[in-house]
Structures are given as structure tokens and as C-alpha cells.
């Protein structure tokens, strides 16, 4: 019954690990071998992140199939990651038989209770008759409005129960009617503000990627000549006029991006949620601007910042409406002002003759890999360097855990992205800390011979926390030094994945050239300068107009991480 529903929902790929309370479903899977592909992972967290990477990169819901108890709880981090970034997942967990529920049976856990605050919706199935309806609802709720994960808990006794399968065609959920059409009066008010503005700025958020409207937004920007910045989740924009693009904003945004926010007189925020990593101190965020906020989730509007014009609706509809308007606008002075700041405060780094700079690796990868490459970054310094130095020109091409900040996300998410995009290059960029959190999924790459490309930026530390300790805790490196890291290239080779280990700056471009052209999966273990910090940085809760623009090296770090003397 489950797989019949999957067929109707056009599910092609399933991610998971079997177990006692889902064994009947896995048995049934054998009969559907020709209709959908199943991918076995080595940890349920890996399977869930892979489904997430699949969903983010393709726009289709990711389907996860795991057992009860620990199988279910192992998906929790993956579900929370997807929830924070509004990624559509349908997670099916096995549950002990209905008669055993509540008895603390073997591998019993109340997963609907556990997952309640991290799912868009969840449901414990109580009868086989309701199953088709419940599944239809799950896919509908996961993928419409503001997307998100839905969990269905399926007791073992119902997995073998017989029932008539009648899949509902239409759904009537009384409490679920997302507003998709933006209110015409609010849209008109927004356009009026735009007409009268001298310094408008669009902030594009994750919603632009989720709603598949990057092309409409590019059109909108080019039509009216409005400059744009994006949040971490909003990468992938490509207006024809490159001058309009001002990069990322927030804690590690570019100086000029944040400058644009602080100096704009009008902010048009599209599918953003004004997270604290973007606003810094919300009272000093965009102090001179009126704010137009477009989002499909009304609860986001006015949650973190005060909004002047709220527009609840699907970006597709709202952008199409915006594009219908015609007016002469001249923001060229503003664009010139921004251009000057961009030139005087570029995003940059200094190369070193002895040490590989992590930014160099990222920037080289950005040059060597084809433009439609999907990049999965992990969390921490590596993620910020990717956001700063990799130029994403396509929507759904940058995957990372933005809201939850889940280390260990990149490798399995990259695997999921490759499964969903077999014809695109998929590049995983992780730090040494996060890479070890789901390193077991290297086996999955080899098992399915998926030509995923991996770069581990190894600075022998939990780098972002180390950076905070250097800057805000007087260089006391409490539990952040990883001076005992393994040789990741050897591990990869042992698993059956081709690998290179590099430590000299001269080797960077050559290695990346090999990586791009490899037909098989391949890993590069790059030993990078452990002293490097992510700059610019707005201290937490600070004014995004006043970031730290430099952070001197701590000379002790080399000694502590690599046992080498600094010069």
C-alpha cells in the first residue's frame, strides 16, 4: 500500500536503513525494484540528509524509510535540519505493533512526540483504512505552501494488514490552506515605494530557491535595475547586469553587501526570515529603510523585524505581478555608490607561499567546476568560505544547513544531490571536524559508485569555534584542536575511492583539475592554513554595518594544531 502511494506520488528514489519494525515494508520493496531505486546508507542521519540534499537540489520531496526506536531517533537531526531550512521530506518510521504501543516494547519510542516541534506535520497511523489518505496528505503538506518535513509513524501490525487501496484524488484539509496569491493592494503599495525610492535593495532568501523563481527574480532585477544581495540560503542569482549583484549579507557577508543593507532606503525582502545571523542587532538592521516583506508563511512577517508592507503569497505569483508593472526608474547613482564600495572593500584573502589558503581552494573550484555544479558545504568556516568565494549562478546549486547548522551535513547531502542529478557534477566541501561526523557515508559513495567529488579543508581544528575562542575568549582553545586527525586520503582509498592529499599552494590548481575530470568518485584532502579566520565578521548581535575587517593570526595555533613553529 505504501509503495502504491509512492508510485502515485512519482517517488523514484528512497533513502533508508531497514530494521525489525519496518521489515515487512522492506520485504515488499523487493516487488517494486523496477519502479523505484532504494539507497542503503550506513546511518539513518546520513539517509535523512541525503533525502534532504536530493530534495533541495531537485525540488522533489525526499523520502526516508527507517525502523522504529533508534532508527527513528537517528533521523531527528536530519529532520530538524530540513525543518529549519523548509525542505520537503516524507519520513516513514516503523513502529511497534499497535497492541504493544505504550508498553515500552523493544525499540519503541514515541517518535511523533519527539518530532512534533521539528516537523511541519506528523501522524501515527492507527488503521490501515486511513493509510492512503494519510500518505496523500503527507506529500501534499510537505511540498506545498512553505515546504517542510512530514513524519508518518507506521506500526508493524498495520504493515501486514489487508485493506482496499483507494488513493484519494483530491484533498480537503480544513485547517490547511496556504495563501498563494499576494494581496493586490499590498503589491501596489510595494511598487509605489519602489517608484519613490532612490536606494532600493532586494534581499533574496531561501524562498527564492524553494519556489523555483530565481529566473523571475533575475528578470525583475534587470527590468528595473535594482541591486540585490542574498542570504546564505538565497545563493544562485544571476542578473545579466553583474553590477547589480552584491553577494551575501549577514555575519560573514561581504562588506559591500552589508553596506547596501545599512544604506538602502527600501528593502524588498523575498522569502527571507530575518534570522539573527542575517540581521545582527535587529534594531540597527537597515535603519534607513522601509521594508517590504514577501513570504508564503504569514508567521514570518513581523516575527523578527518590523515590516512596512507585508505581502503573504507565493513568490511566483508575487514576482509575476511585480513584473506586470512598468515605470521608469533610475537608481544609477545608488548602483555607482555600491560599485565604489565593492571596489574599495572587496572580498579577498592573501595567498601564502607555504600554506594552502582554504579560500584559494574554494575560489579555484569555482573556476574549474562547470557552472551547473551542485555544491554541498558543511557547517563552519568551510561553509562561509564557500558562500564568500564560490560564485553560484544557478538556483538549487548551493546546499548547506543554514538554520540548524548541522555539521556532517555535506557528505550525505552531496550523495543525495548526485542521486537526484546524475548528469551534474556534485562537489562536497567539508571541514575536517564536520566531515568526521558522517564519514561512514564514504562507503555509500563506493557502494553505488556515485562519482561525487569531495574536498576536505583540514585546518586541524573545529575552526569556527576556534575562531570565536581566538576573538572573544582570549585565545583559550577549549576542546577545538584536532591535532590527531587521520589521513582522510588513506581512509578514502581504503573504502575504494580515489584520493589525493595536498599541502602546498602550488598543488591546488592541479589537484582540482584532476578532481573535475575524474570519472570516478574522488576525494582531495587539503591541509590548509590553520591560522586562517573568516573575515569580514559581524560579532554576534552587532551592527552589520560595522564588521571586523581583519583578524590577525594567533601565532600559537600552528604549534597547537600541527606542532610546527610559526615564522
Amino acid at each position, binding site marked *: 500500500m505504501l509503495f502504491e502511494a509512492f508510485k502515485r506520488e512519482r517517488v523514484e528514489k528512497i533513502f533508508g536503513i531497514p530494521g525489525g519494525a519496518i521489515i515487512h515494508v522492506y520485504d515488499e520493496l523487493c516487488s517494486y525494484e523496477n519502479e523505484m531505486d532504494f539507497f542503503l546508507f550506513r546511518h539513518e542521519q546520513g539517509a535523512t540528509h541525503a533525502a534532504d540534499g536530493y530534495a533541495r537540489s531537485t525540488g522533489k520531496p525526499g523520502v526516508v524509510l527507517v525502523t522504529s526506536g533508534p532508527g527513528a531517533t537517528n533521523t531527528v537531526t536530519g529532520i530538524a535540519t530540513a525543518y529549519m531550512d523548509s525542505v520537503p521530506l516524507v519520513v516513514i518510521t516503523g513502529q511497534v505493533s499497535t497492541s504493544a504501543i505504550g508498553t515500552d516494547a523493544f525499540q519503541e519510542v514515541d517518535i*511523533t512526540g519527539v518530532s*512534533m516541534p521539528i516537523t511541519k506535520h506528523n501522524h*501515527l497511523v492507527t488503521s490501515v483504512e486511513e493509510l492512503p489518505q494519510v500518505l496523500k496528505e503527507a506529500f501534499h503538506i510537505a511540498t506545498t505552501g512553505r515546504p517542510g518535513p512530514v513524519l508518518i509513524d507506521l506500526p508493524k501490525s498495520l504493515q501486514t494488514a489487508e485493506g482496499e487501496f483507494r488513493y484519494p484524488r483530491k484533498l480537503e484539509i480544513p485547517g490547511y490552506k496556504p495563501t498563494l496569491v499576494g494581496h493586490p493592494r499590498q503589491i501596489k503599495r510595494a511598487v509605489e515605494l519602489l517608484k519613490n525610492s532612490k536606494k532600493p535593495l532586494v534581499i533574496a532568501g531561501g524562498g527564492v530557491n524553494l519556489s523555483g523563481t530565481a529566473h523571475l527574480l533575475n528578470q525583475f532585477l534587470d527590468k528595473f535595475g535594482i541591486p540585490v544581495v542574498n542570504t546564505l540560503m538565497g545563493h544562485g542569482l544571476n542578473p545579466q547586469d553583474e553590477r547589480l549583484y552584491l553577494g551575501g549579507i549577514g555575519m560573514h557577508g561581504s562588506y559591500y553587501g552589508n553596506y547596501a543593507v545599512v544604506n538602502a532606503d527600501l528593502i524588498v525582502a523575498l522569502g527571507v526570515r530575518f534570522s539573527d545571523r542575517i540581521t545582527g542587532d535587529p534594531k540597527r538592521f537597515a535603519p534607513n529603510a522601509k521594508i517590504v516583506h514577501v513570504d508564503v508563511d504569514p508567521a514570518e512577517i*513581523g516575527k523578527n523585524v518590523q515590516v512596512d508592507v507585508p505581502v503573504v503569497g507565493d513568490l511566483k505569483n508575487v514576482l509575476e505581478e511585480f513584473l506586470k508593472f512598468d515605470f521608469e526608474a533610475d537608481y544609477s547613482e545608488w548602483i555607482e555608490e555600491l560599485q565604489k564600495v565593492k571596489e574599495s572593500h572587496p572580498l579577498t584573502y592573501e595567498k601564502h607561499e607555504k600554506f594552502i589558503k582554504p579560500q584559494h581552494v574554494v575560489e579555484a573550484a569555482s573556476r574549474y567546476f562547470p557552472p551547473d555544479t551542485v555544491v554541498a558545504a558543511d557547517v563552519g568556516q568551510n561553509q562561509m568560505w564557500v558562500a564568500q568565494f564560490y560564485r553560484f549562478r544557478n538556483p538549487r546549486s548551493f546546499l548547506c544547513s543554514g538554520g540548524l547548522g548541522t555539521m556532517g551535513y555535506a557528505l550525505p547531502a552531496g550523495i543525495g544531490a548526485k542521486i537526484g542529478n546524475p548528469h551534474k557534477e556534485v562537489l562536497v566541501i567539508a571541514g575536517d571536524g564536520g566531515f568526521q561526523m558522517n564519514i561512514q557515508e564514504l562507503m555509500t559513495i563506493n557502494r553505488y559508485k556515485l562519482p561525487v567529488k569531495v574536498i576536505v579543508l583540514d585546518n586541524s581544528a573545529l575552526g569556527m569555534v576556534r575562531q570565536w575562542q581566538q576573538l572573544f575568549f582570549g585565545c583559550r582553545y577549549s576542546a577545538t584542536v584536532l591535532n590527531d586527525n587521520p589521513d582522510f586520503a588513506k581512509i578514502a582509498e581504503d573504502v575504494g575511492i580515489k584520493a589525493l592529499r595536498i599541502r602546498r599552494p602550488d598543488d591546488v590548481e592541479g589537484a582540482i583539475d584532476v578532481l573535475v575530470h575524474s570519472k570516478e568518485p574522488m576525494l582531495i584532502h587539503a591541509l590548509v592554513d590553520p591560522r586562517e579566520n573568516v573575515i569580514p565578521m559581524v560579532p554576534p548581535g552587532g551592527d552589520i554595518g560595522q564588521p571586523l575587517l581583519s583578524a590577525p593570526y594567533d601565532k600559537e595555533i600552528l604549534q597547537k594544531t600541527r606542532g610546527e613553529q610559526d615564522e
Partner: protein
Amino acid sequence: MSETVEHEHIVSVLVCNKPGVLRRVANLFARRGFNISSISVGEAKDPGLSRLTIVVRGNDRIIEQIEKQLYKVIEVVKVSPIAPSPEKRVEREMALIKVQIDEKTKLEILQLVEIFRGKIIDVAKDGMIVEITGARSKVEAFIKLVESSGKIVEIARTGIVAMNRWNLSKKEA
């Protein structure tokens, strides 16, 4: 909108009568740090629907968030704010009060019950149970007065149920 002034607010929430709904709503309040002063649950007009009446403290911004977050719960069908002014709404709460009595206090309490139009629903030699219904202010005033004359052993309150008055709800519809 006021960011600082906290006040009490009543929200009437229509939900699908499914297992776990109350838990979902309670969870939401806990998770977002909203404070519930009282909550009451019962069947609504339509079969399959229940009505929750929630009294919550917070500033305007928090109240707005509560309403929006409630709407995100799939089983929540409608969230209706109840007018803050007593002229525009009716509210009722019922309390059962178990009180100790002796010859001296018995008469005092009987008088109070009469003034407040309460009911005595159980009497024994040294105690009784009183039922009192009304707006919360009335229930609280009654409890205070009973406390000053006799010893209260136990109180059970239903929490508030409330509706907007006829004219207002017609205009809204």
C-alpha cells in the same frame, strides 16, 4: 504596536478533534515561550471539531505571533481573537470550592453564596462544596471572601470560556 505592555488575551481556537491536537497546541506554546494562564477544551458545534479557549499573557507582538503560529498547526481550523473589552465579549468560568465550616463560619459562607448566586452542591458536618459561575473577576472575588471567613481545602476551576457578543461576531462574519 506595543512592544512592552503585557496584557491578558483570550483566543478561541477551533481544531479538528484528532488524537494529539491538544499536545500539539501545548507544545507550540512551550516551544515558543508563550505563557498559558488557562486553557479549556470541549466539543464545538460541528461534530469532529473541538474548541479550545486559551488565556495567554503577552505584548501585542507576541499575541500576533501566537495567532499566526497556531494557524500553522495543520489541525487548527480557525483562530478567533476574543475582544479585549468586557462590553464586547462574554466570559465565564466555573469553580468548585471545597471549604471547611463550623457553626460560626457556616452562616457567613451561606450568605456569600447567596450574594454571588452560587450553589451549594455538597454538605457534610464540617464542610461543603460550593459551585460558583461567572466572569473570572467574580470567581476570584468570591474565593477571596470565602478565604477570609473559612478554610478552603481545595479549588477546581474550569478555566475561561468566552465568546464575542452577538453584534460583533455578526459584523466579523
